[in-house]
């Protein structure tokens, strides 16, 4: 009998563990995203493209504020960010959202889809390297 109860409790714990797992994964990605990133390359449909057309620094703050900084024009844009449904939403870029292809201590790779003129999709991948917060002049 004791064994039966132990088994039931073990099963309940297992269910609880799986329910929490997805939430924890999102929290982990959010935590890894936090910080300042410098753009290192941009690839459109597999072809490397000029990165000077994009802001060169972005920052995800833990208070869900997003900063985008173009150091050439000293232009700073503020918005909000969230990670929902396995996608990264940046308010300044909505309705397009990003798939986080990779995020770790040093590298961040984001992909977004947009329509081409035939109604198909163009995939843009932007790669970033982690940098100092001081790179963005507020």
């Amino acid at each position, binding site marked *: 009998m004791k064994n039966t109860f132990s088994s039931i409790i073990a099963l309940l714990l297992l269910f609880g563990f799986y329910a929490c797992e997805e939430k924890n994964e999102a929290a982990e990605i959010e935590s890894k995203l936090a910080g300042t990133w410098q753009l290192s390359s941009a690839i459109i449909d597999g072809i490397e493209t000029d990165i000077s057309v994009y802001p060169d620094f972005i920052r995800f703050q833990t208070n869900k504020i997003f900063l985008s900084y173009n150091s050439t024009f000293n232009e700073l844009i503020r918005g909000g960010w969230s990670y929902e449904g396995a996608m990264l939403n940046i308010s300044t870029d909505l309705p397009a959202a990003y798939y986080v292809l990779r995020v770790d201590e040093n590298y961040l790779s984001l992909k977004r889809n947009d*329509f081409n*003129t035939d109604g*198909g999709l163009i995939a843009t991948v932007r790669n970033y390297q982690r940098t100092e917060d001081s790179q963005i002049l507020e």
Partner: protein
Amino acid sequence: MNKLHFLLSLLFGIAVFTSCEKEEPDKTALISGLWIQEILTEEGVEMPSQNLSLLIESNGVYRTYAKDAAAKEHFGAWTITDNTWLEITTDIWRVASNPLSQTPDNQWAKNHILTRFTILSVSDKRLEIRLKTYAGEQKYSTLFVEGDRPLITESNEEAIQREYKTLKTYIYTFRKS
């Protein structure tokens, strides 16, 4: 002890029974992706092609692109309720009251509302959704391709008002790209 055995057996039986029920596929997971419109029917009759692409993304945002339309792109939010209905936010245009006494810019009024489609079927290849709405709303609003809204005059007012009183059933069929 016997009571305990009985309760445990009952719980086990319920668990087995519910696990044997035919499980509906999770439509929220299936519906994400790029869909290309194949057919649109009105009351079962095929309508001209709209060259429509519908991108549904897992963050709850959808985008549409219609290459032949004047306003090519639209977007909004989506949810699936009870694994049955696809609900999307859309811009709905309606005729303003006394349109003939209004300036051309004020003859049409826009509302941002939730529109509910019934999901007839969804798989990894095909999506079929049904909407019952007023013919005028389908024609002039962003469902999903926004039609041109004409200047309302004495000669067309009655016909347009009639379109907003006539309920029709539309079935949109898409294939996964």
